[in-house]
């Protein structure tokens, strides 16, 4: 599939999810179980990206102190949890990564 077609389909799928309930509401209602499930979508998807990024930066599991992304990511998690501030989380995480990459 060419890239432009992938992007077009990504757009169509996203737009459909945003539009269908608005124009079909009289005919469909989302069941409670599905609504409960949807609450977990962002948490599950984003965590599924974060974990490998931090634990497997070179493809293989690396739990050692030599893994700069693990240490920087851990620090960022602490900042995110305590401050709930996305910008500060990014700043601290990148700062820590650069320092660790320079000294490790």
């Amino acid at each position, binding site marked *: *599939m060419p*890239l*432009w*077609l*992938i*992007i*077009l*389909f*990504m*757009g169509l*799928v*996203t*737009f459909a*999810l*945003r*539009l269908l*309930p*608005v*124009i079909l*509401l009289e005919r469909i209602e*989302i069941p409670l179980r599905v*609504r*409960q*499930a*949807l*609450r*977990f*979508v*962002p*948490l*599950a*998807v*984003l*965590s*599924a*990206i*974060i*974990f*490998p*990024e*931090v634990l*497997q930066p070179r493809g293989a599991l690396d739990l050692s102190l030599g893994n700069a*992304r693990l240490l*920087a*990511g851990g620090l*960022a*998690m602490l900042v*995110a*949890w305590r401050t709930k*501030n*996305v*910008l*500060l*989380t*990014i700043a601290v*995480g*990148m700062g820590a*990564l*650069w320092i660790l*990459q320079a000294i490790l």
Partner: protein
Amino acid sequence: MVTGRSEFLAGVRAELPILLGVVPFGLIFGITALGAGIPPGLAFSMSSIVFAGSSQLIGARLVGAGTPGLIIVLTTFVVNLRHLLYSTSVAPYLKPLSPAWKWLLAYLLTDEAYAVTILHYHRETESPHKHWFFLGAGLALWSTWQASTAAGILLGQQIPAQWSLDFTVALTFIGIVFPALKDRAGVASALSAGVVAVLAVALPLKLGLIVAALTGIGVGMAVESLSPTRRIVEPQPRAASPEEEA
């Protein structure tokens, strides 16, 4: 006197504080997309065609990893499923509008626009023009997203790889996930999805992400159903004990 114009401007104003966080996200997307080998024109068009930050970032990374198109589209579907909820929740308010308005506002229905718009719809103020507020918030976000994506694409061509800017994607998601971990079910969902993603990283076609996400959703629901009294029956506030008063 509430007019369409004043509602529109109020929507733009309500969106302004959120835009501060959107700018770096757009920059990161632009840089990530170029890093994944997406040509600048296509990367930029993604921001208006898809117009959904997290799924654009994830999509760009999947493209960079050589994932088949069908899997990328399927992943986009899963990542953006939450928009069904937003759409269902604004649908009653959009009911009197013309089809053109419905299609336009649905296109602008992002996390950030939804967040301020639904609050405005819930406010008791009588106004027949609240859809203009939605439009103001949505367009403010849309233009900021386009501009910051473009800036990221321009910057991205000059940033050396050893800056490790790809890590900002994980950091952005860390900043989004941690404040959202409010109960045991949420934590279980996030943890299980993360662990499965690590274990399933070798699955073909980058299917690991979808398998991990579905696991996290299932585990979250299971834990939630095991604690049925959660928040429904709040424990009675306890009278402060003498030690606490001291």
